[in-house]
């Protein structure tokens, strides 16, 4: 199965089997470099987990993958479209093929859960309200929230909000579904249920799923492949088995949540703090 580019005469080629290709992406926040020459492929139908500690650049990378930011260097190709060159019309058509469940759900607080889910249908289709309501109920059933369509987002728990956000994200049957920290703020049981939902969505709907998380357990459970970021660099790309058995000490430190400072030589650490060489007098 290969990604079908949207109809566009000047659509640049994307490697068959890939839905997203990032090449040499460099981004800055002010003068601070956030992503450093990042290149990444996301294949059709896979679950790609992007991991990394705080400040590693994973959320920034996600914004570029969702085409929320336009790159100033490097190229990003999503579903056959070079984001730097895409026309406004094609850009909006492409956007309809993306879905996202944000960390906090990002449900519109002035609308009911049902209205939230129907919003993309209302904006992008000519379906009548009855049909849209039926579709919204179907999607709510997929995320085990049937019967909640008339509640306001404020009346839902954290886990329910995330599932409602998933229902909204899949209502247009997107080709790529993004999750930003799906486990954040959830207890282990609800978090595990959300992981199961992600796996079910891939199995049932065959969509490509990109998950940004720093939860190892969750990542190992759902990922086909993992990309590990550290200080804006891609440290690793590969399968769960490959990362588990990777010989790099830096990767194992990050996986086992050991900071670099804990692993350096104590003398070296003291020297860094005091500027003095403990063994050999003044450095």
């Amino acid at each position: 199965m290969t990604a079908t580019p949207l109809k566009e005469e000047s659509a640049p080629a994307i490697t068959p089997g890939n839905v997203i290709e990032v090449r040499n992406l460099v981004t800055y926040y002010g003068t601070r470099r956030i992503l450093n020459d990042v290149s990444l492929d996301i294949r059709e139908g896979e679950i790609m987990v992007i991991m990394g500690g705080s400040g590693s650049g994973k959320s920034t990378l996600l914004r570029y993958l969702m085409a929320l930011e336009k790159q100033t260097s490097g190229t990003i190709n999503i579903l056959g479209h070079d984001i730097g060159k895409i026309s406004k019309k094609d850009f909006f058509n492409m956007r309809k093929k993306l879905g996202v469940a944000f960390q906090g759900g990002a449900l519109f607080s002035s609308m009911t859960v049902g209205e939230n889910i129907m919003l993309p249908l209302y904006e992008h289709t000519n379906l009548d309200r009855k049909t849209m309501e039926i579709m919204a109920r179907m999607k709510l059933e997929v995320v085990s929230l049937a019967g909640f369509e008339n509640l306001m987002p404020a009346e839902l728990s954290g886990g329910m909000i995330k599932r409602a956000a998933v229902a909204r994200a899949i209502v247009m049957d997107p080709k790529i579904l993004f999750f930003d920290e799906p486990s954040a703020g959830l207890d282990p049981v609800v978090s595990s249920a959300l992981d199961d939902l992600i796996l079910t969505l891939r199995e049932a709907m065959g969509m490509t799923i990109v998950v940004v998380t720093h939860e190892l357990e969750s990542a190992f459970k759902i990922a086909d492949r993992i990309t590990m970021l550290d200080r804006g660099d891609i440290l690793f790309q590969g399968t769960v088995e490959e990362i588990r058995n990777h010989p790099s000490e830096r990767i194992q430190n990050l996986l086992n949540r050991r900071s670099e400072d804990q692993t350096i030589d104590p003398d070296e650490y003291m020297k860094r703090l005091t500027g003095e060489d403990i063994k050999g007098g003044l450095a």
Partner: protein
Amino acid sequence: MVKIEPDMANEVEQKASSRFFDRVGRSAVGILEEVGRYGVMLSDSIYWLVMGPNLKQPVRVASVFSEMMEIGIRAIPIVGMMAGTIGIMLAIQGIYTLKIFGAESRVVIGIAFSMVREFGPLITGILVAGRSGSALAARLGTMKISQEIDALEVMGINPVRFLVVPALLGCLIMVPALTFFGDVVGLWAAGVYVGVALDISMAAYIDQTIDILSVDDLMHGLGKSVIFAVLIALIGVLNGFMVRGGAEGVGKATTRAVVHCISALVVTDMLFAFMVTR
């Protein structure tokens, strides 16, 4: 005591002046940037209003009505009350001032011109800025920090088309309408006071007012209110979009929006009067 050498004093002075010019330069660039942002937001709004249907993203009439309800209809009681109060105040001060020259009966001229050309649009503008400019900034700011605006973008729904254009149209329709309403209520309330104070019938007061006022006077006030509407919507919206941080950022943006709105209205009012009235 430390003795300051002349060279050192010169250096300190030079550094202080370069810091001053640095600050002035940065402020000037900041102001230009902000003006640019307003221009871009306005042109984006016009683009989506005109081109939206071609891109299958039309501005929803229901959203415009919803904004009109919020900005206009719900503001009717407060605008009515304030316009009435200002009308009576103008009558009281006008009679007091003209009594010095024994010309109290000419008070209607002052009330009519002041209300229709100045106070009607200004008071309405300030009230809408306080109610709706701040509400727009708070609403969009909250949506920004809770990633609702990002969610709209990923869904392929342009936030300018979905959130800004309805608010802009709502302001453009309702601020002049409220101004006209404020004019009528203010003139009527002033008429009631003048009737009691000078023993003039309401019919005579209305006749005099209609004789004095021309369509140009009415259009002067309404024209200003159209400019005020654009300013209120753009300042409210842009401050909301520029929110950074959490709830504190929303609070700051809301305050900033109200202060900027009211300042912009007063300065624009003065410039408009300067260019049109002389």
